[in-house]
């Protein structure tokens, strides 16, 4: 109802929306007729077992795969048209193993459009996730946790309005995971481009870690959203 009220008054309040989305891989349905609305400025935590369809849902919203049926929109447009406003952190670090963290972040920062009003430099992004920008080792020699944090720095420096995080706490020790939750809480308060607000959609198995962030929690099973209790 709030979404409807805001949209009629001219304010864009829906960050992302899925309408009867199915995604098939051959005969296997990774997503089955999923409908969901993600409002701007909220953090949605998606829970579910392995193979429940959480990662597929994020990849559809990121515009990396297209739905077989149904429609996905991000800021009222197809996700592929919203590059630069959406950032996605997957299981893989999405970084070059042979480059240092700073070189990786410099490279991705150089690909941002000129209109991007980045919150911080690559150096600041690395400091924010607790890494030394002067570290001369290539990313391939980092621990899994360090790679995860570098990957988070990569998405944060893109200054996204919609942040999609796939299992962000995996491979992190308790202290680092706690630090990441604090950082994501901070991120939501950063001023967003276009006068909007920051939206986070994250998938995790570690419900307790994400609890302080969650405005809404969903559970997925066999490619469907089976419960959507209030956080």
């Amino acid at each position, binding site marked *: 109802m709030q979404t409807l009220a805001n949209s009629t008054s001219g304010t864009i309040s829906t960050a992302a929306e899925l309408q009867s989305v199915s995604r098939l891989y051959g005969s296997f349905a990774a997503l089955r007729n999923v409908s969901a609305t993600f409002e701007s400025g909220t953090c949605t935590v998606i829970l579910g077992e392995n193979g429940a369809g959480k990662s597929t849902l994020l990849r559809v919203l990121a515009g990396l795969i297209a739905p077989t049926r149904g429609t996905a929109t991000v800021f009222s447009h197809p996700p592929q048209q919203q590059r630069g406003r959406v950032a996605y952190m997957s299981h893989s670090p999405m*970084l*070059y*193993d*042979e480059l240092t963290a700073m070189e990786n972040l410099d490279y991705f920062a150089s690909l941002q459009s000129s209109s991007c009003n980045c919150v911080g430099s690559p150096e600041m992004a690395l400091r924010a996730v607790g890494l030394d920008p002067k570290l001369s080792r290539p990313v391939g020699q980092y621990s899994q946790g360090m790679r995860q944090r570098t990957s988070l720095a990569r998405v944060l420096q893109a200054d996204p309005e919609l942040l999609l995080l796939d299992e962000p706490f995996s491979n992190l020790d308790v202290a680092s995971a706690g630090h990441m939750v604090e950082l994501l809480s901070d991120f939501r308060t950063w001023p967003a481009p276009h006068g909007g607000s920051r939206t986070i959609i994250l998938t995790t198995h570690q419900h307790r870690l994400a609890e302080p962030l969650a405005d809404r929690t969903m559970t997925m099973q066999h490619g469907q959203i089976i419960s959507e209790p209030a956080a």
Partner: protein
Amino acid sequence: MKYIQHVLSHLRKDLRLEWRSRDSINGMLFFALLIVAVFSLAFDPTGYPTTARQISGGVIWVAILFASVTALNQSWTREQRNQVLDAQRMAPSPASALFLGKALANLLFVMAVEVVLAPIFIIFYNLHPLGNTWLLALVMPLGTWALVVNGTFFAALGLRTRNRELLLPLLLLPVSLPALLAMVQATTGILTGDLDPIQINLWIRQLGAYDVIFTTICILLFETILHAE
């Protein structure tokens, strides 16, 4: 200007990655030297200087072609590892800039191999070019770009296939035939001095036209290839 900056970012990154690993250049150089050495053993270049000149134009391009195929097959491997390609697909940067950056990097790698290969080739085949040698400075980059631009494109096309090592030469060799013909004819003409400058000029123009046409096609189609599932 922003587009050129994006192309240069991709190019710088690829040059840095190659500088750290030297995978492509070392592999290509070894393969090209092997081909040149094997062919030189098949006959006596000092005893038959005319024959050496007549076949060397073909031999050098065969060596460069096969060597570059080995490197081009691997040119998108680093992007596939760790799903870096997905991050590049999501970046607000034109897909064609990614393609051009990669193709330019591959051009520099192959030309670096040619620079090392050329003196060795001249010694092995006892070559004394009889035509306008400076024209090779046009033929070599144009011919290399013809191989590299299509090779980079077809390597990307094969990214999501299981037999991509097989797919690249199967696609690249037939498509490159008009360019290969022009490269070999022009190079042989320069080495033997048999062709007059007008004929060589025609082959070079054909090569240039081929480069323009296929570079345009690759740039226009690359976004579709990049986002194909």
